[in-house]
């Protein structure tokens, strides 16, 4: 076991997978110098320029080249520095990579990974702070992972690289500095399995990436109100562990979905819709969501905090769901 930061966990996993499989090659901007988030540090030195390919600022070429190479049998891992930049190569991701296996009747496959920094909290502004895993969830044919901790970064990235389908890995930039014990050697977290990080009986808090931390903190605070919250880390959106969430919600009867996506249309809406269809009888209170506000993300500290989800908002939503003496009381039927 080694203490690793989330960013080092990414670099270590890339190295591990590159040692394991010579078909794993890296492509991206400034990755040779270690990457702007230091997630590829040391890899050019270890693997040389035939495995680590520095590119021009050409996101379409980067992702398109990864696609072509994967069709020819390699397992490229492309970096999109900030996930907001997916917009500059969205055709390659949404229209080509996601569809080519299906539309060729299964002839071509894309065992590739695209990874990069996602999410807000660091004052990077409207064009460098978005959580855009909802964009990807709109498009059938791509898998979506988003680790909430260093150890998960290891396990999910390894699984993504080994998967025979295209996987987008959304690393959360506010977590890069977070540190945790990471298993040595092989550590692979199967895609499509949510983790129950804290069992609880009163309310289910569901998070992804950075919002998992909000859920955990909220759960701590809620113990003060004698609310016993279960915390679920979704880990992947596609495949989605709907059964895991449903099982928890059926037990607790209450749920707060905590997403950084704008509530207008984020993964929280996707999960809420499933609950509304399939856990309707089991819910004791309405589904609650804590989402990013439906607004671009501002830079100034207080302003950004007002837009992004917060522990306070999670606690309030959970309390309102559980507080049988409060305003939610009349809404509880069972």
């Amino acid at each position, binding site marked *: 076991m080694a203490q690793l930061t989330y960013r080092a966990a990414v670099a270590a996993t890339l190295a591990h997978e590159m040692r394991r499989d010579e078909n794993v090659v890296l492509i991206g901007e400034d990755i040779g110098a270690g990457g702007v988030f230091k997630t590829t540090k040391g890899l050019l030195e270890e693997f040389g320029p035939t495995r680590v390919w520095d590119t021009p600022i050409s996101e*379409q070429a980067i992702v398109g080249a990864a696609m072509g190479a994967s069709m020819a049998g390699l397992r490229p891992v492309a970096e999109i520095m900030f996930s907001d930049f997916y917009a500059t190569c969205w055709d390659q991701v949404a229209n080509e990579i996601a569809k080519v296996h299906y539309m060729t*009747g299964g002839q071509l496959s894309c065992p590739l990974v695209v990874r990069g920094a996602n999410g807000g909290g660091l004052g990077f502004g409207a064009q460098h702070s978005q959580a855009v895993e909802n964009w990807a969830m709109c498009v059938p044919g791509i898998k979506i992972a988003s680790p909430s901790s260093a150890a998960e970064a290891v396990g999910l990235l390894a699984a993504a690289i080994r998967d025979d389908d295209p996987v987008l890995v959304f690393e959360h930039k506010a977590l890069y500095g977070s540190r945790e014990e990471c298993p040595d050697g092989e550590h692979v977290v199967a895609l499509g399995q949510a983790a129950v990080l804290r069992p609880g009986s009163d309310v289910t808090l569901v998070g992804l990436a950075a919002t998992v931390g909000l859920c955990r903190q909220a759960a701590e605070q809620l113990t003060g109100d004698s609310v016993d919250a279960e915390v679920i880390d979704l880990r992947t959106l596609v495949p989605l562990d709907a059964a895991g969430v449903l099982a928890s919600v059926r037990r607790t009867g209450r749920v707060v979905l905590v997403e950084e996506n704008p509530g207008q249309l984020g993964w929280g809406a996707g999960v809420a819709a499933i609950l509304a269809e399939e856990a309707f009888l089991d819910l004791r209170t309405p589904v609650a969501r804590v989402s990013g506000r439906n607004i671009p993300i501002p830079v100034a500290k207080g302003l950004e905090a007002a837009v992004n989800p917060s522990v306070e908002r999670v606690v309030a939503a959970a309390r309102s769901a559980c507080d049988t003496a409060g305003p939610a009381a009349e809404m509880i039927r069972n």
Partner: protein
Amino acid sequence: MPGPGMLSEERAALQRYEQMVFIRLFEDKVDALYRQGQVRGPAHLGQGQEAIAVGVGSVLQPGDYSIGTYRGHAHALARGTPAGAVLRELLGRSGGICGGKGGSMHITSLEHGYMGSYAIVGAHLPIACGLAWASKIKGTDQVTACFFGDGTTNIGAFHEAINLAAIWGLPVVFVCENNSYMEYTPISQVTSVPQPAADRAPAYGLPSVTVDGNDVDAVREVVGHAMETARGGGGPTLVEATTYRHGGHSAADPADYRSETEVASWKERDPLLRARAALAADGVSEEDLEVVTARASAETQQIATAALEAPALDVESALVGMWSDGSAQWRN
């Protein structure tokens, strides 16, 4: 089969001619079936442009890659893709090369190295780079040929792809089929240089290479040379081949934005007539040439009959095949 008395190069030339004739008749047949309402979705046909697909196809080796567009029947067929499976794909019958999921715009034959037809303009140029990049990393001597139109030279993906191929010295030959039109708009009206591809090559440190795209031998020579360069580690070439589509942008387009004289003047330069004249000049008999045409015609007819009789698709197949394990589950 060309007569046994022929020299082998002459035989090969006659085979290329036969391929061109076959592709022409195939497209004509698709057009006819389209008009009968048998082809679902759009069909972008390539009559008039056969010399490029066949010329390039003739210098590709087995194991090489090629990749093209929605106007891709010819490019698939020129690699040896079974025409029956292509036609069944267009008709939505069982036995289609993509299981009825791709249709005319996405013809693909992995087995023949034809790595797909793509319907978003420009999107496949970066993908072509990726195929060539894989060959470079693996150290094989495979070459990738990438077909696209004149209109494609104005989209961003073109620029990113050619630059990447150039800096990495990728073994890819970009073949621009300049047929003078994007859909309805003359390319000259929307392009800042007269030769949309060739005049851009220097912007990537590449020489300007043009070729008469209606002359199958010229295409063979120029593209063959580019391929040998690529195979030898000399990097990419951007070739502009001048040609013309006899019909509209798609089978649904009457193409009345073009003058009759313009169309007529290009039909005089029909690549099939040119190839036939060249063969005749080389001493191939009228009889041998007629045999070729008759055989292609019979084959087309037979393929169409079989395709129209093929069973319907299993509708349930729509709901599988998204993931590489054959499934389409996105949640549990």
